[in-house]
């Protein structure tokens, strides 16, 4: 089935009808059939947890979102992360994408990014060094099906399990977007007192796992029967840690970090980089909220662009893979909400292990458990 879909995409690319194609696939699908077939088309490829949702499928192993826009310009490039690091790779990918779009040095309207998990903040910095900080960079990290590192990204000629896939979009039609999460803060707050990158050792001077276990009331805790480290991604989905990043009025808004792994030494591995001294708040969410959130973000994206009552051509979405796994069985409800929000316009929603997008007042940020939507008018 997936192979047939790949052939369809291959044929589509062969016709050179489209200027941009976002192809998000289950990590078990081999994309080599479509690589090398996209002359004249910017191909943006990344794995998506289990597959991706579309207006016709809740979770398709192969999902493609294509744009035909001769008046616009599109460019995609994947650069493997090498010794120069993720930021350099992201910078190179952005510049190559600009060159492919024949817009070298020009500010795009939007950047669509897919990187393999781990150094998303550096990726954002690399892209921003090329396009500037006020260009929205929206995307999600490539995901496999079981957090085993089987993810990869690819363009028309390269595929990498440790790389950055950047697409620069200069559409001729207006675009609008939204980047949100569906969580609420709890009264449980603390300060990161010891951290190394994405591994938080201590919160308020205590082992981070202990604090987190306390905050969740034991709902997420390390158990002896689990190997060390213990994956807690699924369990922690409804209780991420939030860092106040902005506020509307006096109401703070948080950038979420999703605890992924619990170590025996009490450390917690996150899907986002933490800073020592950061204030953290345990957030809480509900399955219902996660199910409805996708449609609501899509509506917000339309509203932000002033296109609530106007027809949209389509939309690209990012839906947190962890959330998807949590509401896996409720995916029809998720896609239904999106279809309704977009009035049936075609869309593609990738399930990712980390989400990037612009937060109001905070610029482009990498977060977890986020949902984003880009609406093409």
């Amino acid at each position: 089935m997936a192979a047939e879909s790949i052939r369809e995409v291959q044929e589509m690319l062969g016709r050179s009808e489209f200027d941009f194609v976002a192809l998000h696939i289950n990590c078990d699908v081999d994309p080599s059939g479509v690589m090398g077939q996209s002359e004249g088309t910017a191909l943006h490829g990344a794995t998506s947890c289990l597959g991706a949702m579309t207006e016709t499928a809740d979770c398709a192993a192969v999902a493609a979102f294509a744009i035909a826009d001769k008046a616009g310009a599109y460019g995609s490039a994947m650069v493997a992360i090498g010794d120069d690091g993720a930021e350099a790779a992201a910078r190179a990918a952005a510049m190559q994408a600009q060159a492919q779009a024949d817009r070298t040095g020009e500010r795009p309207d939007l950047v669509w990014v897919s990187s393999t998990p781990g150094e998303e903040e550096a990726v954002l910095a690399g892209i921003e060094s090329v396009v500037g900080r006020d260009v929205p960079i929206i995307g999600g990290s490539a995901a496999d099906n079981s957090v085993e590192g089987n993810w990869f990204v690819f363009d028309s000629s390269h595929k990498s399990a440790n790389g950055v896939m950047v697409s620069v979009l200069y559409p001729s039609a207006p675009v609008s977007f939204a980047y949100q999460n569906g969580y609420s803060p709890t009264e449980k707050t603390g300060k990161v007192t010891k951290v190394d990158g994405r591994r938080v050792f201590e919160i308020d001077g205590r082992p981070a796992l202990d604090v987190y276990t306390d905050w969740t009331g034991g709902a997420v805790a390390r158990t002896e029967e689990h190997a060390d480290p213990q994956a807690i991604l699924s369990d922690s989905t409804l209780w991420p840690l939030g860092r106040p990043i902005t506020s509307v009025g006096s109401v703070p808004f948080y950038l979420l970090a999703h605890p992924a792994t619990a170590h025996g030494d009490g450390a917690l591995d996150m899907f986002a980089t933490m800073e020592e001294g950061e204030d953290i708040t345990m957030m809480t969410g509900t399955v219902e909220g996660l199910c409805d959130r996708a449609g609501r973000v899509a509506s917000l994206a339309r509203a932000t662009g002033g296109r609530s009552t106007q027809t949209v051509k389509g939309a690209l979405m990012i839906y947190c893979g962890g959330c998807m796994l949590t509401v896996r069985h409720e995916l029809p409800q998720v896609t239904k909400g999106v279809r309704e929000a977009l009035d049936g316009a075609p869309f593609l929603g990738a399930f990712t292990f980390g989400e990037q997008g612009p937060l109001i007042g905070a610029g482009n940020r990498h977060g977890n458990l986020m949902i984003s939507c880009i609406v093409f008018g």
Partner: protein
Amino acid sequence: MPNDERLREALLELKSLRDREARSLEETRSLLSCVEAYSAAPNPNEALLSIFRSLHGQLGSTPTLIAKRLEDRRSEVLASDDSGLIGTEFTAPVELYNRPRNVIDLPLLGPWEGALPIGDSTGMLSVPVQSDTVLLSFHPKPGGFGKAAMTLTERLAGLAMQALQNSRVAAEKDLLAAAIAGSSSGFSIADARSDERPLVYVNRAFERISGYLAEEVLGRNCRFLAADPAGSTERSRLRDATRHRRPGRFLLRNRRKSGELFWNELTLFPVADANGQVHSLVATQTDVSERVEAERERDHLRARMRQALEATEDAFLLLEADGRIAFANASVADLLPAPQLNWHAGTTFDDNWDDYVAHATNGAGQMTQQFTRADLDALTQVTTGVEIDLPDGRSALVRAARLDDGGTVMSATDVTEMKSAQRLLGQRLAAIEAATDGIAISDAAGALIYMNAAAARLMGLPNAELGLGQAWFAFYDQPATMDTRAPFEMVVTRDTDAGLVTHEINGSPLDNGGAVIIVRDVTDRLLIEAKAEDLRRDLVRLQGQDTIAQLTAGIAHDFNNLLAAINGSVTLMELEPEVPKELHGHLARIKAAGTQATRLVSRMLDIGVDENTQGAFDLTSALADVEALLRPGMPGQITLTLENNSPATALRGTATAFSQVVLNLALNGCDAIGKAPGEVRLSVSCGPVQDPADVKLGHVIPKSTYAVVEVADTGSGMDDATVERVFDPYFSTKGRQGTGLGLAMVARQVQSVGGAIGLRSKVGDGTTFTLYWPLARLIQNEADRAAGDATDLSGMTIIVVDDDRGVGEVVAQYLEANGAEVAVCADPRDALDAITDDPSAWSALVTDYDMPHMTGGELVEAVRDATPDLPILVVTALAKRLSDPRLEAAQISGILAKPLDLSQLCQALASARLDKAEGLDDAHITG
């Protein structure tokens, strides 16, 4: 959904919307601010600058500019907030005019060529406005322009372009206004909506030209300037143009405020509003007084020039730079006829030339390649002009020159006569050089300044140059004492290696005191003249002898007749037996006196008679003498041919006279041949001559026998007029080399022997003289007449013919006394009739020679036709001069002289009867 979450979502959505509205509001404010600044600008240029300033203020851009596309990807700055950049050319590393660009990393695009100060810029906004203009904003800081900046710039770009255009229009208006105000030409505007069309504006130049201040004329119709009569053509045209709001140009006679008149060239044009309604009449005024006066002067000069050129015989042609004819006088068409275009102004030279060539080709003249194409460029290169021979036979000297304005002026002079004169002069000079006479020119001192080759030769110089500067008289033995102010003539001599030569000098004075000197070598001529003088004297002598002879012959003739009667009567009286004896003595004395008288008359007849006409000579010997005399002196190129087809024959006259005649004719032939090769042919025959047609002198008796001597040459021949005069004394075709007496002497000598001269000649075909020289005849001398005894003439029937009936009767009586029967005829025609009627009835004929109606010779000739053997005796008083060839010995029995010895007559008759009888016997014997 928890309320908290719902609240947070609502807040976030609200925040998003607020941000969007805030951005929109900011954009609107920015735009409004820009538009306000734009609108508040006092002029289009400030409006444009306000946009630049707004972009700088709102976006931080610097510099900002509007550029125009040039060729080869180059651009030029049309406007900028940095005025120093205006006009700067540059080449961008990317295409600027196809779409908007928001460049945030400008160095990535590559280097810019030109002088734009953007080296530190990192951002750039480029917004094309039209296909060939673009608004550029540069940003000095990293990150460049945001999306809102692009939006604002795109919105302002149109305004900027409009401002630029407005600024340009305003600048043009300002320029026009300044130009009008500062123009040296008067400029005025009248309100066309008012019937009065009052002036609403005048510039300073109008004030200066008219002398009126603006405040004096505004609100008035400008007719106050008019000085022309109201009905003049130009004013009428102007009124019509203003009435109908039409443009026009007018030359008006105007008057300044000071009263001074001037020529005003007024240009009028209406100005209409968008609806086409004319609201203003704009006029420019220019004081063209100087130009008009100059044009009048020019026209006057041009008219005079045209008249002069029309009057000149030289062809004059003026061409415009494009080859069209500006002017051609009448002589052009005369010299180079072009019947179709006729060299009219406005037609092209090439077309006219083709017309001329076609006309000339169709004509009778010769058309050469030279005329098929007129190369004016080549002609203008030859400053001295080119002489061409026209197909109609004329020659022209053509000159051409380029004018400063690219035109061409051509002139052509008919030099046909001049060339003829040159040719004639050349021929004359050649003739002078070739002349055998020496021709020289001397100055007042006699020094030679020119001499031809003949003069040099005559003066003993190897060439003429050696004699120049020397006095001509220094070459002669005699000192010159002539007055060169009057014509002079002299004969001078000089010693040469060949002996003393004599030159005749003729001098004609010249105005400059010099003289033209003609030198002739007259050495030979003088010799010829001396010889001619001798000949002339001989001729005169001969003519005198001839006259005397004719005179004495007449007297002798009459005396002889008288003596014949006297002597005859005495003879008859002596025969009478009854004459008394006392009379015998008288009769004897009468007879003796008669005989004496006869001898006297005979001697009278010898007076004036050329002895050369007497006697006889042998033709063959004479011809040998001629050849011996002639051949050594013949020029080498002339062949002498002698053909003698005559038997040994005795001719009348002397061999000397014959030789002189033939030599003279032969040498004339040599002269006629000249220096060219030729032949002189002498041919001699003898025989009866019928009636030659070429006889020019003397008389040829048909059927008589002559020695015919032809002297023919292959020389130049003679025309008919010369032939007619060739025997006249002193007529010569040899100029000074001839005497004019040679042929006259020939004629005299031939006539003296009774001969004739024939002449055939044709110019270029030689000349043939034919001598008809009579043969010698039998003349009984006095010794023959010694025996005078009476003779019996019985049986003879004799017819006696003499116009003097008395003589005839005496002769008849005597013959009858000797037994003959005699019939006397005074008219020879009667005698001829009688003989012709019955020739056998007559035994002999005795006839006088000089008779009316028919001479004795003619009678003899006629009788011989009737009876060849009838004995005939001719009696004449001029026996010694008778040269009638019909009376030669073969035709008659003898000639007896008057006064007639009757006994001699009887003996001659008896002898003749005897000869006839012997002839008959011989005939019988031989028959």
